[in-house]
């Protein structure tokens, strides 16, 4: 398991490739048949407004701890062989990766479930706060994330969208 906060931009696909080809990581094992990945990137729009840049605040000490707890929880629930979680902090420009969650397992069920579970837990619990600079120069705190499940779906949208 690797969990890292990244103050500088990172290329998510290069980061996964590097992680997966490192012999020290379980991701490299030939007993893995599956890998599920989510990459969240900064959009140039939010809630109808053009967004020029984003500042991502976090709580040093707690954020790392909470991310590790979220990954450990997924590892206890699903048979995973490796997890890579990267999350940006600081000043972010449109198109840059904000978060990367990559999960490796023997079969696809576990990777799919764990990757999504980690992302939803991160969105709900990891102490990060987005501060947007809009096209007209004004700034605002983002008040909530978009829901990760359809309203008629798994019933979790109302919890997440608070």
């Amino acid at each position, binding site marked *: 398991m690797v969990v890292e906060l990244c103050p500088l931009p990172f290329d998510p696909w290069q980061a996964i490739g590097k992680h997966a080809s490192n012999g020290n990581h379980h991701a490299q094992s030939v007993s893995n048949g599956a890998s599920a990945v989510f990459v*969240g990137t900064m959009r140039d729009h939010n809630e109808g407004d053009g967004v020029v840049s984003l500042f*991502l*605040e*976090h*709580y040093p*000490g*707690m954020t790392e*701890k*909470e991310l590790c707890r979220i990954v450990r929880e997924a590892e206890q629930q699903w048979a995973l062989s490796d997890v890579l979680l990267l*999350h940006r902090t600081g000043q972010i420009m449109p198109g840059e990766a*904000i*978060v990367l969650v990559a999960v490796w397992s023997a079969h696809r069920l576990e990777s799919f479930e764990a990757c999504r579970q980690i*992302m939803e837990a*991160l*969105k*709900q*619990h*990891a*102490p*990060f*706060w*987005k*501060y947007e600079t809009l096209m007209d120069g004004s700034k605002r*705190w*983002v*008040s*909530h*994330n978009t829901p990760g499940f359809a309203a008629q779906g798994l019933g979790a949208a109302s919890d997440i969208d*608070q």
Partner: protein
Amino acid sequence: MSIKVYYFASLRDTLGKAEDNGQVTGSQTVSDVWQQFNPENPRSSSVLCAVNHTYASMDHPVSDGDEIAFFPTVTGG
């Protein structure tokens, strides 16, 4: 008892301060700590709190040396 209190994001802007350092007495809860340091700002029900880097409820008891944090809904990812 000596504690540290941190405020994050929009909450820090609203309160106009990033932290409080101070003494608390007796068997106080996290909620009491807010009350003591922010007597003129009633706490919104959406405010979250952590004690020593772990989420805690507002009736969590405070101990000497604790690091307490108050913050709004998180928006990472």
